[in-house]
């Protein structure tokens, strides 16, 4: 029984991998199996969402119980989750389809998300000010590169003459480095995926 518990997931993983690869490399044998398996994963993930919701509720109910200055945030999270779920369900039951959920998404969630994202500009400036200090040759090169590329973006003279240097930076050294990183990353992704498909990386069940 213990052996079955150990080997069954590995056999399922290996068979699934073979099916997906056979689907990718052949036509007319098991067409659409890969797509069907991906759909299964989405369906399982949808069901598991309930488990995630239970976890969120449990964590924040515990925080409410513990008290403290931050419990107001836990309360806000629980109340807003409840309101969104109830509004969505009642909206559908009343024949409004998704219009209630869409309204919440468009007029409450999206402005909040946009505001949060816009903070990145200020955080970037603060991080850059902290980092871009000339301490050695490497940091000096970094600062020079950053200044040239930044000034090169300015359309009017006298900085417009820097735009060709800025473009050269982006077209050759930067692009070359990015491609090198992408090749290395792709190899890493292939290695990780194959380790899982071969059952070598099985730290979720060892």
């Amino acid at each position, binding site marked *: 029984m213990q052996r079955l518990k150990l080997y069954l997931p590995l056999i399922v993983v290996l068979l699934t991998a073979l099916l997906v690869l056979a689907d990718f490399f052949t036509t007319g044998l098991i067409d659409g199996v890969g797509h069907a398996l991906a759909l299964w994963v989405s369906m399982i993930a949808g069901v598991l969402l309930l488990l995630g919701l239970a*976890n969120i509720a449990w964590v924040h109910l515990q925080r409410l119980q513990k008290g403290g200055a931050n419990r107001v945030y836990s309360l806000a999270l629980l109340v807003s989750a409840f309101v969104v779920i109830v509004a969505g369900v009642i909206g559908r039951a009343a024949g409004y389809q998704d219009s209630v959920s869409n309204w919440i998404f468009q007029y409450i969630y999206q402005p909040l998300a946009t505001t*949060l994202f816009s903070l990145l500009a200020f955080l970037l400036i603060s*991080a850059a000010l902290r*980092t871009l200090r000339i301490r050695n040759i490497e940091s000096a090169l970094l600062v020079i590169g950053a200044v040239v590329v930044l000034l090169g973006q300015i359309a009017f003279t006298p900085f417009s003459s820097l735009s060709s240097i800025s473009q050269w930076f982006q077209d050759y050294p930067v692009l070359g480095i990015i491609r090198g990183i992408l090749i290395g*990353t792709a190899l890493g992704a292939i*290695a990780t995926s194959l380790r899982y498909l071969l059952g070598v990386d099985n730290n979720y069940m060892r």
Partner: protein
Amino acid sequence: MNVSLALGPSTVFALIVLAAFLIFFFVAWSNSEQGRSPNLRALRPLTRLRGLIGQSAESGRRLHYSPGSGGLNDQPGAAETLSSLTTLGEISRGTARSGASLEISANDTLTFLAAGDVTEVAFTEAGRPDDFSRDDVHFVTQQDRLAYIAGVESSLATEPTAGTVLLGRFDAEYLLAGETASRLAIPQIAGSSRVEAMPLMIISAGSEETLLGEEIYAVPAYLDHRPALLASLRAQDALRLLIIVAIILGVIAASTGLVSDIGNYFLR
């Protein structure tokens, strides 16, 4: 039934890469099993990571781990999340042995469950199953990167934290959590293979605390010297060498006019 091989340029290329990787991998695995292990260059962030686990155990404050704002069901980011989960297993083993506490934030239900399993197995193997609680693995959001990182940021700002490890698929949103950790002087180890996140990690976490690109896939082999993991590193290097040779030959062939549309072949 008419069965045939789907041999377009991309599938042929994928087949060659797959076959070459498997050959290199099994040869390197056999070598590693015989004790012929490769010399690994030092990765500074990993030395810091071991220090963070020790600090967490001494201070009694938690070590926070984020497997990235991607998910297992998110096709471009699945490999990064898988690699991050393997790393999480090794870190969990370290925290279990040293008596440190670990908390994990997940941005996906599948990652949330897998992270729980990986951590539970690690604590059980380390002989301290009672020190692990599923409540230490938090489901923050369902594949909403900005809301997820806001949740991580809030957790760092409100909970006493000895250090944070942000390893996996991140984009520019990383900066929200990274800058909060910097502001609160929480030591962090960051890593991503996304070019959108890497420069931000370097300027926020520092170059000595950032794992760049493929390094995040190499971390499991550095933390656990299992023959299979080392073999996978060797196979990657062999394949990289093959690609370098192909690029040099391609440049020579295209420059000398031997093959006129070799670039177009690879672009296809």
